């Protein structure tokens, strides 16, 4: 079978995989590398559950072919916390009650992460637009939006202190 060899960094660690060329980044992350924090709700780019960061930008892992990751840095939900120290977004999601079944949560947090990286104090409208491709059936989004705002404020404070 025709295989491709792809090298990329995943959560800061170098990875090399040898897989059929049609393999998606989602399949590599979940099945080949066993990181299941990235979820699959449709596999067709309709739900946002598989959102990961590619060089800091939010992408749908189910629509990304593995070769598109060649030489790039991929961040999944497992790569956000520094040891036991959670990312401000993770903390805010917990504090604000933005999590119910939790299946949308990893993708939601990574879409928000990409937003806050570019825009640390987004408006409600900007947050709504950034997560518009991430479906959540449980929460009604209200507490998710509050959590993103809170995390933005907190990162700004932390940055100001540094």
């Amino acid at each position, binding site marked *: 079978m025709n295989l491709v060899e792809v090298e990329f960094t995943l959560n800061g660690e170098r990875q090399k995989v040898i897989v059929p060329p049609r393999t998606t980044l989602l399949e590599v992350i979940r099945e080949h590398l066993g990181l299941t924090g990235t979820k699959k709700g449709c596999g067709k780019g309709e739900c946002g559950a598989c959102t990961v960061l590619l060089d800091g930008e939010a992408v749908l892992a189910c629509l990304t072919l593995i070769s598109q990751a060649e030489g790039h840095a991929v961040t999944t939900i497992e790569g956000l916390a520094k040891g036991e120290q959670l990312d401000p977004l993770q903390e805010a999601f917990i504090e604000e009650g933005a*999590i119910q079944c939790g299946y949308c949560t990893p993708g939601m947090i990574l879409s928000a992460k990409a937003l806050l990286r570019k825009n640390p104090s987004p408006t409600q409208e900007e947050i709504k637009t950034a997560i518009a491709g991430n479906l959540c059936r449980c929460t009604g989004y209200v507490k998710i939006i509050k959590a993103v705002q809170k995390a933005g404020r907190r990162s700004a404070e932390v940055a100001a202190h540094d």
Partner: protein
Amino acid sequence: MTEFKWVGKVVPRVDGVEKATGRLRYLTDVGLPGLLHGRIKRSQYPHALIKGIDTSRAEALPGVVKVLTHKDVPGVNGFGIIVPDQPVFCREKVRYIGDAVAGVVAEDPAVAEAALDLIEVEYEPQPVVDDAEKAMTSDSPRVHEKGNIHQEVHVRHGDVEAGFAQADLIIENVYKTPRQMHTFLETEGGLAFYDEEGLLNVWVGSQYPQRDQLQIARVLGLNPRKIRVVSSPTGGGFGGKDEITIQTQLALMAFVTKRPVKLWLSREESVISGWKRHPMTLYYRTGFKRDGSLVANEIKIIGDTGAYASLGGPVVSLAVESSCGPYRIPHVKIDGFCVYTNNGVAGAFRGFGVPQSTFAMETQLEIAREKLVLDPIEIRKKNVLRRGDIAPLGHTMTASVGILNTLERAEKSDLWCQREKLKSQTPFPWKKRGVGVAIALQGTGLGVGIPDYGAAIVELTEEGQFIVRIGSPEIGQGNMTAYAITAAEALGCDLALIKVVTGDTRNSPDSGTSTASRSAYTGGNAILDAVAKLKPKLLAVAGEMLGVDRAGLRLAGNRIVSPQGRGITLAELGRYLREKGLEAGARGNFVWPTADVQIPGAEGLPHLVYTYVTQMALVEVDTLTGKVELREAATALDAGRVLNRQGLEGQAEGGMVMGAGYALMEDIIIEKGYFKTMNLSTYIIPTSLDLPERHQVELVEVLEESGPYGAKGAGEAVMVPISPAITSAIHDAVGVRLKEMPAAAERVYQGLRGEEHGQ
């Protein structure tokens, strides 16, 4: 007022960190060495006889381990909570396009997929039964031999003709409601395998592991004790994982191959095969006095349950129970029919029949109110049930009744107080705004005549933690956190010391299903019973250890302390109990109270404990396109005592959005038995961009004496009245009265054109 340490406070979810970090393994995330992959061959026709199934070519494909058909089912080839009328694998007939005809188990998912195409099934197509009302006629083709009417419910109370004779105004209409899809983000899936003890494990997200265990046992002809079902955590349920989804087929795959197998439905397959909300047609004739009081209601409800019964009968029963809203109506005649068709399958869904009849009843009331020139709040206040009243079904409302309280609270909401100002703030002259209000009651628990019980085991570990075991699974609703709060409050210990285990037949006792807004109330009561047994025992042993009288001892934080300030840690106590071989746990039980009468032939009717809710909507209608946007919403909810404040708000927020989706956009379209909406690009649910600017949530705590700390359930009611509130608001904005949902742009646009032509 009672001071609580945990009850009603804002606390972090007990599973929050695991979910936020992606560490939590959902059952579709679990892998095992040597895992095989299962796939299901589904029907090609909505209705057909099976003339033959040839699996030989599929079996010959390298990598295929086994192809399964009805021949491989050792026990009963059927499942279904009420009647097992749905085949695991169809033998003589297929009844909907999602019906399972065969299963493939292969070494590789791609091979399994390829093998599906090699299975040859010879069909003889039958006429498709696609209209529930036509299906009821005697000359309709039959979906099942016994006829197309699965179940009927008839309620007679008072004298309906005498009631109409007293009426000054009679309103008569027909309503239709859409087929909503649960759209849980995690599709149905999981794995099955034999463990070291020889138990067949079936790990699939669902709402009731013990019942899954029985249904699997019946199919396999196995002792249920030989099966372990794990069903927590689950990536959303909403009723759609109450019935069996894939468990029987998956269990059979592992049972036959004796190897671990994974089966996980694609989104399209989930859409086609999975349960939906019953579309209903509702005939209403309602009599009012000039002052707005309700005197009579004659109702006929037809629910399309699709190919198999599942909980269709009880769903129609609940639609009947709520068909008069939370109102006093002395004379009623209500008939409900649950009907088989070839339109997919319908079953349990948050609200369970109540959203359908609430939409109809609230619209009836609004039409009358307009004709009688009455205020929307006043006409409701005049008619609502109060404690001690006789409900339309004939039973006495003996439990707490908070509907009036929710109306009074909602009346003070910003949306209502500022409605005139809000309505005038339209950005463009072609956009018109309107407001609407609607109210509802939702029965909680399973109701009269259905065994409804809970159980909890609370035990102290050697590490000084309390483990709370309750079978009802965590499906996202937050029952684990509610259990932890209830246990910590009753024990008097830190919340962080409580560890909750749910959804596992081996490690948590049967406490019934996570449905019917019942899990916090049922499990909470069982916890209180367990703690009442456990705590005195613990204090007695602690007294022995400290050499003091147990009377003055109390639990505080992670210690048991005496009035003199002496104490031991819970870990010390836990270790002591273990060393001495003493019992460190207790089991608590709870049985639901039930109403004083039973409606014959109606599964579970009536209920005794109800949740009450008032919701309001401000909408903006684009008169050029018919597009409706929800701009503001308000919810006033009586779920009794608030156990978990943030959790309850989250339910109200999520429920409101789901109800708004039902009102405005959601409908699975099936034509002649074939699905036209197959995925999340064609079936649209609300996104963050569909949110109103504001949703005010008010929690009205009318205490329910039978509930833990006075709490009742909440999960369902919160999605119910928002839909008629939205359609009433549309009428207020542009004068279009919708009797069919969803209020999609095309439908509203047609209404607008109709109005112009004076229809």
